[in-house]
């Protein structure tokens, strides 16, 4: 049997080499971040409403407003403001200081990051755990009552606003059963975990239906494939087939989907923070929006863009690494 050199075959078929592939992906990511930052910069400045007027209140004199506008750099042309913004971004890695509090945006965001990150991480773990269980149950009970119930689930949850789900959970587990706090975040790691459980379930809830649907379909595909039939014929225990062979092969497309949906999950987190009164990135965004605090809004958008793009890149690399069809033989 002739041995095929996968590396040459891939190159001949027009696939880019690994390093080139990663470089292209990184370049694309960089372009996305730049586009988002520029778009957000111009978008938030079209808004009617003057931050200087907002800080000084209704009765401020025209001179004091003009003076504040000058110190904030708001009297410059849009283009000059943009150049100044780009300069700060590249020299200090920051989007400036908050107009309202004067604190560096980077510090403001850094202070809010731990809670939000913990919430996102917790939501991811819950979403994956629930999806795995439900998808395995649905796929192994295909066309039985349980499968139908699990499949009806997405049609119902699709129209559920995430903040409303949060409110219902507060009502049931907070107000009625007193299992979890109604809002806010307790001190310490265990306190944080405890008070973030309900918000995390809320965020995860919006992701589970899509993941279950994808994983179930993938599992059924694999279950019907020839190699599973062979394994069955070889009397390999059902449990081993399911968890060692089927799940491993079915998980990859769902992982990719999860990577794409993570951006959606992050957006949902911002809203859910508002429902539960969590002082994270989301609540920072809303207070900055109501006070027209441009640099902070800008900073959050940049921060989210970087986070989402980095996660996307990571998922791409992991998937590419895991998929035996693109992996090189060692």
């Amino acid at each position, binding site marked *: 049997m002739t041995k095929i050199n996968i590396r040459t075959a891939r190159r001949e078929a027009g696939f880019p080499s690994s390093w080139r592939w990663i470089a292209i992906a990184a370049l694309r990511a960089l372009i996305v971040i730049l586009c988002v930052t520029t778009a957000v910069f111009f978008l938030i400045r*079209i808004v009617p409403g003057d931050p200087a007027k907002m800080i000084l209140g209704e009765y401020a004199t025209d001179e004091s407003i003009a003076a504040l506008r000058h110190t904030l750099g708001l009297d410059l042309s849009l283009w000059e403001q943009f150049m100044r913004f780009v300069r700060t971004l590249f020299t200090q890695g920051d989007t400036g200081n908050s107009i309202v509090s004067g604190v560096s945006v980077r510090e403001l965001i850094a202070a809010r990051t731990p809670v939000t990150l913990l919430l996102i991480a917790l939501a991811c773990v819950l979403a994956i755990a629930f999806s795995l269980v439900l998808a395995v149950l649905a796929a192994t009970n295909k066309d039985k009552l349980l499968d139908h119930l699990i499949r009806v689930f997405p049609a119902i949850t699709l*129209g559920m606003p995430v903040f409303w789900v949060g*409110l219902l959970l507060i009502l049931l587990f907070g*107000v009625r059963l007193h299992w979890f706090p109604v809002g806010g975040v307790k001190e310490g790691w265990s306190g944080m975990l405890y008070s973030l459980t309900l918000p995390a379930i809320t965020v995860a809830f919006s992701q589970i239906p899509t993941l279950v649907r*994808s994983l179930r379909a993938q599992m059924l595909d694999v279950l019907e494939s020839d190699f599973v039939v062979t394994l069955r014929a070889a009397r390999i225990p059902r449990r081993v087939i399911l968890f060692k062979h089927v799940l491993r092969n079915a998980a990859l497309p769902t992982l990719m*989907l999860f990577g794409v949906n993570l951006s*959606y999950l992050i*957006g949902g987190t911002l809203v859910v923070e508002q429902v539960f009164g969590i002082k994270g990135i989301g609540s920072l965004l809303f207070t900055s929006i109501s006070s027209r605090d441009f640099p902070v809004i800008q900073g959050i*958008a940049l921060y989210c863009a970087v986070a989402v793009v980095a996660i996307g890149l990571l998922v791409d690399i992991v998937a590419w690494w895991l998929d035996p069809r693109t992996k090189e033989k060692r």
Partner: protein
Amino acid sequence: MFAMKINDLPLNSEIAAGTETESLLPPNPKSSGQRGWSRARRIPALIAGSIMMLLLILAAILIPWLSPYDPITQDLSAFLQPPSAQHWLGTDQLGRDLFTRLIYAARTDLGIMVLAEIIPFVSGIAIGMLAGYYGGWVNTVVSLVTDTFIAFPFYLIVIIVAFASGAGAQGIYITFMLVGWIVFARVSRGLTASLRQQEWVASAQTLGLPGWQILLRHLLPNILPQAVVVLMTDMVGVLVAIVTLGYLGIGIAPPTPDWGTMIADGQSFMTTAWWLSAVPGFAVVYTGISLSLIGDGLSDLWRRKS
């Protein structure tokens, strides 16, 4: 816009499998239009969804005659009443009848939902078809833009754009004009690109048919069904976004009834009058289920045909 929903849909492969590869004539979706109704009757999802939607629309149209109350006038002597014979769902913190406001809010929210989707639907299909048919740099730019938007937190975009374009319905229209077309562009780009490989397109090109004629008369009718199915799912997302913006205070401004602001107003009374927040949410879920059922039913209907 809703990346997760697109990924669920059976796209190119299914459509490509459904069309006859051997044929030199385009599959004509209109050929069996008369029998459409009798076929539609056999799809329970479509029937159930349409009935649910019709009921809601009827209620929204007839509400001035159904209810003696006004959705905006306050009656502070009757605030926070529990459900009763006079007030079917009780009253809110300003003494307004909850049921009346709920149905008036359907007018607001459904109206905005439909209007906000018209321009994105048309422009998205146009952009996607052009990119898919002609390829080249148009395709590169469109795919870069759609990838950028899809990779970015949807609610962050919506919140920033809605804030930038001012509160109220106008802001919502602008927001979805900017971001709503992407989902349709993605779908129609993929479909057009796969249909372009079919032999009947090549034969039309050989016959010297101009590009716009192939696009409008032959490709569009084959793309529209899938796009309408996506539209149904996407409308649910738009409705949820409208309600979320209302909840966050950057959507419909009070006192205009809107499910989102109603949920937000009720939040302070969770312990005493939980239904104030819960009921408007159920209205959103009801609408969502009926649209999903219609979407599922339509995709069933068109799949059976081919």
